[in-house]
């Protein structure tokens, strides 16, 4: 009982914190700076509680009261840690970002915490209705965050696009859940697995259709091919910290629930593995093609996010349903989150007012004017490109190892070819920063030290994660 409460505590803290923040901003008790510190505090406390609750093994939370809806496993705990850390760093970089941009109100931070509570719930959910509720808690908050700059046309376009398509994805998920319920008589993952084990996966058309719809919803949220078209515009329209949050926290949550759903049963996974194979390959290469052509850094990062979804899909194809620990996926998510968050943290103070500095050309000569920030950004880029000794390299190494171990040699080689191609656009920014002369001057005043500090903490994280060994 106490044990269950402890495992659920991060979610409770985040949920309560979100409501508290929302109430106090409704009564106008908070400046937005205080809200930033408040949300960061909520994330920090929840992170520490999550870290201390390291009781290993899977525990079904409040199995009597919740009827097995929520399960805390080592994978969900790791994903929770990543999400909470993402929230913390996003809150910090938002604080600095809003020193230069003025469309903030305290509700912004409360929405961020709400989104995190949805993500946490998503990592633990073992039942389709709960998945839907968690997904919507997360998505609704994210929709608003994307369109927070109401006077900005690009941002408004982004939120419209995301909302329309996201609503479709949500509808697909409910549709799929209904189909699966119709076929198996239950929405619980355990029961579905028992049904699949007893009756086989391919024998029930409703089950195939239902899981297809559910996969569509997940692939949409994870920004995989062929549901990737929204990513570039939406990431571009959202403000820098929100983009970073979406690229890391949201993706972590989606991949957690995706993996949990796929490892339900071996025949379910093997039924989809061929399709996932092609989806992974196309996601990587389409993402690369989009990224190569971009002039804006944010759009390039959005497209590179698609590529990283492809790498994570490789890991999903290669997960074994027996003794699933998800450590490869969790490790890659952590490595990816550290470098992506880092670069968005850096962008939130390098961008300047109104995100003036945005294209590759604007970053020319940055190494001269801000040598430390340029070095940090280079470390993050090298990590995303998978150059040792960064975390990104180790993440890629684990993914390739698990793919080859699972017999997917072709997929592993294609993943490597894709990362060779991706070198081009990562190196391009480093070359611009170091080897080119500045063409335009930007005000280099830093409004607050929080985001720079976070950036350097994340640099340390990138190296620290790479030294941390993982158990496969």
């Amino acid at each position, binding site marked *: 009982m106490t044990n269950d409460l402890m495992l659920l505590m991060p979610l409770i803290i985040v949920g309560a914190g979100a409501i508290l923040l929302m109430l106090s901003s409704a009564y106008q008790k908070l400046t937005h700076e205080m809200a930033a510190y408040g949300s960061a505090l909520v994330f920090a406390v929840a992170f520490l509680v999550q870290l201390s609750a390291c009781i290993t093994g899977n525990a079904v939370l409040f199995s009597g009261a919740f009827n097995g809806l929520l399960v805390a496993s080592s994978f969900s705990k790791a994903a929770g840690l990543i999400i909470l850390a993402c929230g913390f760093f996003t809150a910090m970089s938002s604080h600095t970002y809003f020193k230069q941009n003025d469309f903030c109100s305290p509700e912004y931070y409360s929405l961020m915490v709400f989104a995190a509570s949805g993500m946490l719930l998503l990592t633990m959910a073992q039942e389709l209705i709960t998945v839907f509720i968690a997904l919507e808690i997360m998505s609704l908050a994210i929709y608003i965050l994307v369109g927070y700059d109401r006077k900005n046309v690009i941002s408004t376009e982004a939120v419209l696009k995301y909302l329309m398509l996201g609503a479709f994805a949500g509808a697909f998920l409910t549709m799929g859940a209904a189909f699966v319920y119709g076929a198996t008589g239950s929405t619980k993952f355990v029961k579905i697995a028992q049904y699949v084990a007893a009756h086989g996966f391919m024998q029930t058309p409703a089950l195939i259709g239902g899981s297809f719809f559910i996969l569509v919803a997940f692939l949409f949220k994870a920004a995989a091919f062929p549901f990737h078209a929204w990513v570039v515009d939406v990431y571009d329209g959202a403000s820098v910290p929100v983009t970073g949050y979406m690229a890391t926290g949201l993706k972590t949550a989606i991949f957690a629930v995706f993996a949990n759903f796929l490892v339900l049963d071996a025949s379910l996974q093997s039924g989809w593995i061929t399709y996932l194979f092609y989806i992974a390959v196309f996601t990587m290469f389409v993402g690369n093609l989009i990224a190569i052509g971009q002039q804006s850094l944010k759009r390039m990062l959005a497209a590179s996010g698609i590529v990283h979804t492809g790498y994570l899909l490789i890991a999903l194809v290669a997960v074994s349903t027996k003794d699933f620990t998800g450590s490869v996926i969790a490790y890659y998510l952590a490595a990816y989150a550290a470098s992506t968050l880092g670069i968005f943290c850096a962008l939130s103070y390098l961008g300047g007012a109104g995100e003036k500095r945005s294209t590759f050309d604007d970053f020319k000569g940055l190494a001269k004017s801000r040598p430390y920030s340029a070095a940090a950004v280079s470390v993050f880029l090298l990590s995303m490109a998978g150059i040792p000794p960064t975390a990104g*390299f180790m993440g890629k190494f684990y993914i390739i*190892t698990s793919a080859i171990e699972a017999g997917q040699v072709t997929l592993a080689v294609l993943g*490597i070819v894709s990362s060779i191609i991706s*070198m081009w656009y990562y190196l391009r920014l480093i070359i611009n920063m170091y080897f080119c002369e500045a063409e335009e001057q930007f005000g280099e005043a830093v409004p607050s030290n929080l985001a720079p500090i976070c950036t350097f903490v994340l640099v340390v994280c990138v190296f620290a994660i790479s030294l941390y060994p*993982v158990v496969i």
Partner: protein
Amino acid sequence: MFAHVLSVIIFLPIIAGLLLLATPASRNIARFTGMIVSLAALVLSLDLYMGFQSTGHLEFVENIPWIASLGVSYALGVDGISLFILMAGSVLLPMVYFVFATKEKGYYANLLIVQGAMAGAVCAADMILFYIFWEVMLLPVFFMLGLYGGPKRLPATLKITLYTIAGSLLMLAAIVYLGVSYHAQFNEWSFALDKMAQLNLSGRVAAVAFFGFMIAFAIKIPLFPFHTWLPDAYTEAPTATTFVLSAIMAKIGVYGVIRFVVPVFDQEFARFAVLLAYSGVIGMMYCGIAAITQKDFKRMLAFSSASHMGIIALGVFCMNVQALTGSIYQIVAHATSTGVLFLFAGILEERTQTRTISDLGGIAAKAPVFALYFAIAMLASVGLPGTSGFIGEFMIILGAVKFNTAVGVLAGTTLIIGVCYMLWMFQRVFFEKATPKSENFKDFSLIEGLAFLPVIILIIVMGVYPQPFLSKITPSTALQFASAAPVVAQAASATNAHLPELTIEQK
């Protein structure tokens, strides 16, 4: 002297370099730090050299488990093969700090990092650790070339970086494939080098993995036809980078072939050895002929370096002890001769502001010491008896003739091309009439003369009395063939039906 001496040799320069980059140190502080750290590394390496037992196996072993679940460990060690590449780096790199006094902080710092990373790649006894150092050693080159290179540095930087990274990522796939195969065959995870030799690989995937390794190393060496990045990078790079690339980094490519490809992929290696040997010989000829026509002496040296790398690689592909020992010996000889020639070329360029051969002339009269040093290094590079270059080339040709007469004869006759371009260049630059640009050429200062003196002496000592060096190399090279011999012999008898001229020494 103490335990973990290898770790210190590796990480002392890396940490010093990173500290220099992170702090706002002046260029003088950077230079002196570099000098002291590289001299410290030299002292430690000399100590290592003295304590080396020449057992043939890895010595000074350090082994700390890192990723236990995958069998990856932080494992270091040196044997007779790696010792000499390590020594070449430690002996040659301190000179740069003495000779080039006016470079920027990042120049010295990157040089330190690359020194540590190269030592790490040479000492690593675990494939993942090797790969990490292998990639890390490219990064300082990338920055040095891009920041301090010549006017056309950007395309050259991109070319070398993308080329090498593409190769090494394919190697990563091959490394992982080996690890997984080891897991499948022995039910235990390991990426340790010495365990990979037990692997029994066959079939198409093994051949693909073999080429995964081979292409990565061929790009780094560079072996024909993967040499196209070399002329641009060597020419545009600042002198120290060219020096590092040609003197040591290229050798790590050869080292990789000896360490990874020969013991693990013995069957594939035996199958493709003739092809590879011809590619080495063609590279020798092609780059040698290209060198003759160059107007820029740095570019000429670049082609000459590539040509010599062809013969070093050939020594590895001949699959016998003489050629392999000759290759290791030639690695050191080439590092001391061609590497030093690049430094001389850098000095020449700095003092005359030109790289065009026809702009120069009559330097021998103005600068006798410089001309003498240059002549000795040049003669060693073309393999004159009595210099270090002769011993290595002689052994390689001997081994090549044993391996395949045609290859041996071709390689032996190609050496004459080297004499052509080198002597012709020497004549045009150092003799003939002085030109306006070379009129005021200043000779070496005392410090410069003393800094280069040990290497010049080493060239002659290695040429006159090679035995002490050979006795450290031979046990390790002999061991390479002692373990691989049965398989090589089998593969040879299997392939002999198709290739009657293929004769492999069966020791």
